[in-house]
Every structure is written in structure tokens, then in C-alpha cells.
């Protein structure tokens, strides 16, 4: 039981990394991104490829830990590129247009992964090493522990960023009303770009922590994890960072307790479906979201 609780929390923590990125983008641009699972996966695919075959041109084999850094950097760059080339041009259009565009990005990246890295499950060694620790009789692998730690760090960092920095204030102003924010001198475009790049970095980190824990990486698999993150964000409230983290942890817990507890195939997904639809019906703004998130 303790083991299930802990693994559930750790998985939820990894989801929350993606969820925080999705919420950050939603807060800034009112766009829901379905692309960030694949953006993170692509980053980690690149990291694994370079670790195995050497970096192109350099021939240098990055150490295992560097796969995580490469995943973060490549995913951030990809996400920034998507914002610059696609999403920026859709600001002010119908929200469904932007959603479909992120779907297109996800589809494109997944299919590109299939071409570049093959359809077979790619073995993903843990960037953090294979160490495990025992907490209250439950063993927890290093990646899961890192996920928990990373989620905590992100939560604290986001809190400080939004309350203590000028740029955090700019992001909040943009959330409130982009037009007024621009008139007040907030660099709205830079805020958009920041949101996408930060979300990309978080997605890369999440991919590097989730793939080893779930036995490898296949094209399109990360989108499934991203959907759980999205479920968490919806439950917590699409415009609340804290809500996204809480919601993701809840999804991770429910998944681990229901899925592992009943042993029925698909019961975890059924439980998540009930959670999401129930929340949308009873409280469309989510646990901690504002009515504007509806």
C-alpha cells in the first residue's frame, strides 16, 4: 500500500512537470497544448541517440546524466520553435484552431520520431543511475525520487517567480488581459515565448524521468502521459500552477491505487475519465482555477 502510494505520488509528480508547462502556456495564451508530451519525448530521443552514437560532428558520447540535460535543452528549443513558427501566428484566433495546431505539432513530431528512431520500444536507462532507496518499507527508484524532488522545486520556483520577479508579474499581467498588458509596456511576445520555452524544458525533464520508470520510450507514448498531465491540469484548474501540481499528483495516485489495486486492465484510465468528466461537470473551472479558466 505504501509502495503504491509512493509510486503513485512520484508518477504524479512527473506528470505535474508537464502539467505546469501546459498551465503556464494556458495562462499566457489561452491555448491548450497537446504537443508537450511529444516535444519532451523528442528531446529525450535525441539525448539517447547522442549517448549511443555520439553527438553529430563531435563524435563525443555524452555521459548518461547528460541525456537528461540534452532532453531539456532540445525540448525547450523545439517548443520555442513551435511558438515562433506556428503558435504566435494563431494568437487571437478561435481557441480550437490553436488546439488543433498543437495536435498537428504532436502528430508531426510523433511521426518524425517513428522515421528517425524506429517504432520499437527504445531502452531508456535512467539518467540518474539505478540507485533505489527504501522509505517506510517501500522501495523507490532514483528517477521516481528525482521526479518528486523536481516537482517540489518547480512548485517553489514557480511561486517565487510569480510573486518576487518583475517578469513573473509581467506573465500575470498578460494572463489578466494581454491588450492592457501590452499598453502598460509588458513585452507580451516575450512572455509568450518564455511560456513555451519553459514548458518545453519541463516536458523534456518529464520525459527523461518518466521513460526509464515505464520501461522505455516509443513514439507517441509520451503523448499518453501528457494526456494524464492534462487531466491533472483540468482537475486542478487550467489557470492554476498549484492546481496543476495537486491535480497531477491526484491522477498519479488514483492511477496507481485503482490500476494496481484492482488489477483490471484499463481501470486506471476509466478512473481518470470519471475524474475528469466529473470535474468538468461539477466544477468546470477545476479545484483551484478561476472562472476565467472555463
Amino acid at each position, binding site marked *: 500500500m505504501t509502495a503504491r502510494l509512493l509510486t503513485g505520488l512520484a508518477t504524479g509528480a512527473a506528470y505535474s512537470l508537464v502539467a505546469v508547462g501546459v498551465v503556464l502556456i494556458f495562462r499566457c495564451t489561452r491555448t*491548450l497544448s497537446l504537443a508537450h508530451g511529444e516535444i519532451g519525448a523528442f528531446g529525450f530521443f535525441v539525448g539517447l541517440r547522442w549517448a549511443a552514437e555520439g553527438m553529430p560532428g563531435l563524435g563525443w558520447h555524452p555521459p548518461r546524466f547528460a541525456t537528461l540535460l540534452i532532453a531539456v535543452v532540445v525540448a525547450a528549443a523545439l517548443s520555442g520553435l513551435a511558438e515562433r513558427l506556428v503558435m504566435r501566428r494563431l494568437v487571437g484566433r478561435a481557441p480550437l484552431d490553436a488546439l488543433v*495546431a498543437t495536435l498537428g505539432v504532436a502528430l508531426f513530431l510523433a511521426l518524425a520520431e517513428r522515421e528517425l528512431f524506429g517504432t520499437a520500444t527504445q531502452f531508456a536507462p535512467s539518467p540518474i543511475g539505478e540507485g533505489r532507496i527504501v522509505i517506510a518499507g517501500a522501495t523507490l527508484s532514483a528517477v521516481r525520487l528525482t521526479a518528486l524532488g523536481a516537482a517540489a522545486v518547480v512548485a517553489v520556483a514557480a511561486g517565487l517567480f510569480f510573486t518576487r520577479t518583475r517578469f513573473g508579474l509581467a506573465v500575470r499581467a498578460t494572463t489578466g488581459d494581454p491588450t492592457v498588458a501590452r499598453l502598460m509596456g509588458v513585452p507580451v511576445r516575450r512572455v509568450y515565448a518564455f511560456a513555451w520555452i519553459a514548458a518545453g524544458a519541463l516536458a523534456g525533464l518529464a520525459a527523461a524521468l518518466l521513460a526509464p520508470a515505464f520501461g522505455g520510450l516509443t513514439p507517441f507514448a509520451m503523448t499518453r502521459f501528457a494526456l494524464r498531465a492534462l487531466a491533472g491540469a483540468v482537475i486542478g484548474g487550467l489557470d492554476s500552477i498549484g492546481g496543476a501540481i495537486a491535480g497531477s499528483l491526484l491522477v498519479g495516485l488514483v492511477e496507481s491505487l485503482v490500476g494496481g489495486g484492482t488489477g483490471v486492465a*484499463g481501470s486506471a484510465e*476509466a478512473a*481518470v475519465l470519471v475524474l475528469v*468528466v466529473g470535474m468538468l*461537470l461539477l466544477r*468546470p473551472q477545476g479545484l483551484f482555477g478561476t472562472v476565467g479558466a472555463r
Partner: protein
Amino acid sequence: MAARAEGPNRRRPGYRARPSRVVGAAAAVAVVAWSLTGLSDLRLSILVSVAVTAVAALSLDLLVGRAGELSLAHGSFLGIGAFSAIHVGSRGVHWLVAVLVAMAVTGAVATLVGLPSLRIRGLQVAIATLAFQVFAEVFLFTRPDLVAATRTFGRPAELRTDRALYLLALAAVALTLVVRARVGATKAGRVFVAVRDVPDRAPVFGVEPGAGKLLAYACSGALVGLAGAVLAIKAGNITAKDPFLLLESLQLVAIVVVGGTGSAAGIVAASVFVKGTPQLVGSVPGTDLAPERVIPIVSAALLVLVIVVAPRGLGGVLRAAGAWIDRRVGRAAGAHRADQPVPGGHGVPVAPPSGTRTSADGRTVAAARTLVAVPRPLWTRMPQPAVLEAAGVTVRYGGIEALSAVSLEVRRGEIVGLIGTNGAGKSTFLNAVSGFAPATGSIRYLGRELLGRAPQVRVALGVGRTFQDLGLVRAERVLDNMLLAQHWLADYPAAAGIVGIGGVGRTERALRERARLALELFGLEGLADRRLGALPYGTMRLVEIAAVVATGPGLLLLDEATAGLGTGEAALLARRLRDLRDTLGISMLVIEHHVPFIRDTCDHVYCLESGSLLAQGSPDEVADDPAVVASFLGTGAGALR
């Protein structure tokens, strides 16, 4: 390969079939004939999968394009259709029964999935359908009993050959196109469009938004079920779940967007490109790349590109080509040109109504009789001196009293003006009368209390209104808007309209005739096929008034009738409204700012200030009332008088 049969049918009296449609239909027939004579059986069997995808995409578009609901679960619906068909078909019943059951089951599942959309909108609907897709994949499609893993749907004798199967698939595409056309030409399509674009005002047309949405889900689901059944007949037994997974759902969205929402031809073309080319083309010309690997990536990239640079997709290109053909042919035939000036546009006076030039004109009186001949309770036909009696009408929003104890009266055959400064409560009063604002007091129409009745009931009793910011659907044609306004007059159930039973044709012809008469009264009959949003603002306002007149109202509430019209046009509109009053006997309550309009048109004027009645009387009395002048211009040294 499919006819461009999208949109309302074209055989209306007085409207010509467009040449582009003829060209499109001819091209479709040619492609189908070529595929039947020139292609091997292997290729035909590939085309079956293309047709299945086309049906699924066309039905997804019914939901996305018409009703504005994005479903990311259509891949799973396709699977549900296929597996239900195998379940039933493997039990020795006739294959048509299996197809019908698959359609019914999938339609029911889609309706269930659509249920949350009654409470949530847009992005959230997309998320809910996404959650269902994932649930279906891992919970439903992993159960051997549910997916009928051990059963086989034996291919019926008459469908043994690939050619026969191909004909069945073509029939499925044709049926889908017919359903889309029926939806577009009847109540259902108008419900979907109203739900999509003006959900808050839909009651004015008598539209029930919730039922409309669910009908859209049910239709779309039933058609995907048809696609799934064709797939099941082709395969017999399905073990690989690939065609039903999230990737497929996303690809269907990609096909709809690349093809262009609302464009059947574009979507069919996109289906052929995405599903057909990988199998039909050996390799990408000039390279040794296998197209089945390249095409999906290209189509994903196209999806993103289309959204950014050409949101109307392939359909937009086809539409432009069609418009070009129509212009070429139309110029030769001397038809009404799209770039011709229109009434109410800049510098173009609103032509005097052809029918109402003289009130004694027999044709006008006949038109008037037709328009007011609306089935209504007997009491609305009783002679009553007062059409509208409002007494002590108060509207409160939270702690703010927007309207306090306003009493006014509109007598039979009167045009009554309602004036006042911004925020005086004029529109609020109209909202109270039409049921869009919570009011207390008493509002009696022909002696019966209106308060407590739903907006759609008031419309049906004969209280018609326009909105200050246009309550119509700009994305649709003028004619469609005229029909939408008369939605509540169509007495058949929306679902029956799709099937085409129960006097639907007769009702629709009657509604079109009413629409034509109303447009003629305003000299707008040449614009029936133009998109409303493409017309000048003043013209849109005229169309809105014409749309309300088409419902044969007993009382017409006009919110800023002359907004967007020039001085000369306003004078002509005033004349037209007086004619309407004289020939149709419509009483009116008009919010207006334009003083000459009020002096020329109104029989009586009320002036509001800060939610209370300030003055009333004849137009001249009110205009000269010192309190009214003070309200508009202020008092003291700075005032004009």
C-alpha cells in the same frame, strides 16, 4: 470521387443551379466511372479504406464544422462501429441489420460522450472526448469479448468481390453526403449553426441548444458507425486496433482541417491524399522513399501549415475555383454579380420596396396575408386596443436597478419610439419584453402576461426582436438566416428532417416562400445566396429586420433600427416601417437616436433616463420637453439651449 452535394438543395423556385455545382458533379461522376472501369480489384479494395476514412472524416466535420464541437474520439467511435457490426453480423443475420445496429450503437455512444457538452464548451469538450478515446483504447478495446476476437463476420455472398464492396463503400459515402445535405437544408443544420455561433440568442429562433448538440453527436456517431460497419464487412475479424487509436482520431481531425471544415469535396480529397496515395503510389517520384512513410508526416505538416496560412483549407481553394466558374458563366448569362452594389451599402440607397410602393397594391396585400398567416393561439387574433402594456417593469442585476418601475404602452398600429442616453435602460427594457432580462412587474402582450414565459414562447406568440449588435449568424447565407429566424415555424422534428419524412419538403418550401416574400419587402431578394457577413453593416441590419418580419410578428421590437444606415437610407427605412405597419398591421417599439427618424415615423415617444421614465408624448412634445433636452445635452451655461 464524390459529388459536391453539400449545402441546401438547389432546386428552389427562383434560384438557379450554380454552374460550378454542375462542373463539380460532372467531375465526381467521371472519377467514379473511371475508378469502376479502370482500376484493378486490389486498388478498389484500397479505395474501400479510403472511403471508410472519408465517411468518418465527413461525419466528424458534421460535428466540428456545423455544430462547432471538436471530438477527439472519432477513432474510437470507428472501432465501436466495427466491433458492434462483427458482433451482430457473425450471428447469421442479414448484413444490413449488422450495419444498422452498428450505426445505432455508435450513435448512442457518441450521444453519451456528447452529454457533458450540455454544460461545458470548446476546449473542455475536446478534453472530455480525449479522455473517452484513451478510456476506450485501454478499457474497451482490450477486452476479447467486447471486440469479438473469436467471431468472424462472414462476407455476405453479394459483397464477395472487391468491386461489390467498393460499391457498398461508395454508397456509404453517398449516404453521408445526402445526410449532410439534408442537415444543411432542414431544421437540424440551423440548430447546429445557432448552437455554434449564437448560443445565447438561440432561444429567439426557438432553438433548444442542448437537444441540438446531442442531435449533432448522434448523427455524427451513426455515420462513423456506418464507416466502422463497412470496415467490419471488409475485414470479417479485426485484431489490430491501429485504425481506432488516438493517432487515427488526430488524423481524422487533420483530414477535416486540411480539407476545410464544411467542404465535403475538400474533405474527400484530403481523405484520398492521406489514406489513398500511400498505397496507390509506388514510391515518391524521384526518390526511393515509400509514400506510406512520407505521406503521414507531410499531412501532419500540412495540418499545421493550413491552420496558420489558409484556415479554410482545400475547400477554400475549391470554393474560389467554383466562384470563378460561376463568375465566368454568370457574366455570360447576365446574372446578379457578387460585386454588384447592394441595398444599404455605402452610397446605395435602400430601394423602395418593390411590393409596398402603394399600400393598395394587390400583390403586397397578398404577401402580407401570407406573412402574418402564422399558427398562433386564437386570443392573439382578438382585436385588442393595446398590443403591449408594460406596468411597473423593474430589472435588477445584483444590487443595481437597471430599470425601475417603467410603464409604457404600444397600441395597435402604432410605431412607438424609445429614446434615452447611453445606459438609460432602453435595451434592458427590450430584453425584459423578449425574455432576456429577469424582470418584475407586468408585461402584457394582447392582454396576456409575458413574464414567466420562455423567450422562445414569446417569439412564437408574435413578439419579434432585433439585436443592437446583430443577432444573426454572419458565417451563413442570407437565406439560411431567414430560415433560422423561422425555425420555430417548422413543425417537424429536427431528426425527421434528416430522414426526410413527415411533410418536411412542404414545410421547407413554405418557409422559403415566406423568406422570399420578406426579402422582397425590403428589396433584398437578390442577396439570398450571399454570405451575411460579407454584406455591408447597414444591409445586415435590414436582413435582420426582414428575418423577423418573415416570422409574421404582431409586435416588432427594433434595437437601434437605423444604426449603420446613412441619412437617406434611414429615411427610406422609416418609410418602409410605416408601410409594414399599414400593410401588415405590425405594431413596433423602436429604440432610436436619429431625431428626424423619430419625428417622421413615431406615433408616440417615451424617453428613459437612468432606468426611469422621464417623459412621454408625441415626438414633437418629447423633443421640446426641457427635461429631455437637459437629459441629452445637460443644463446650465454649457448647454446648447
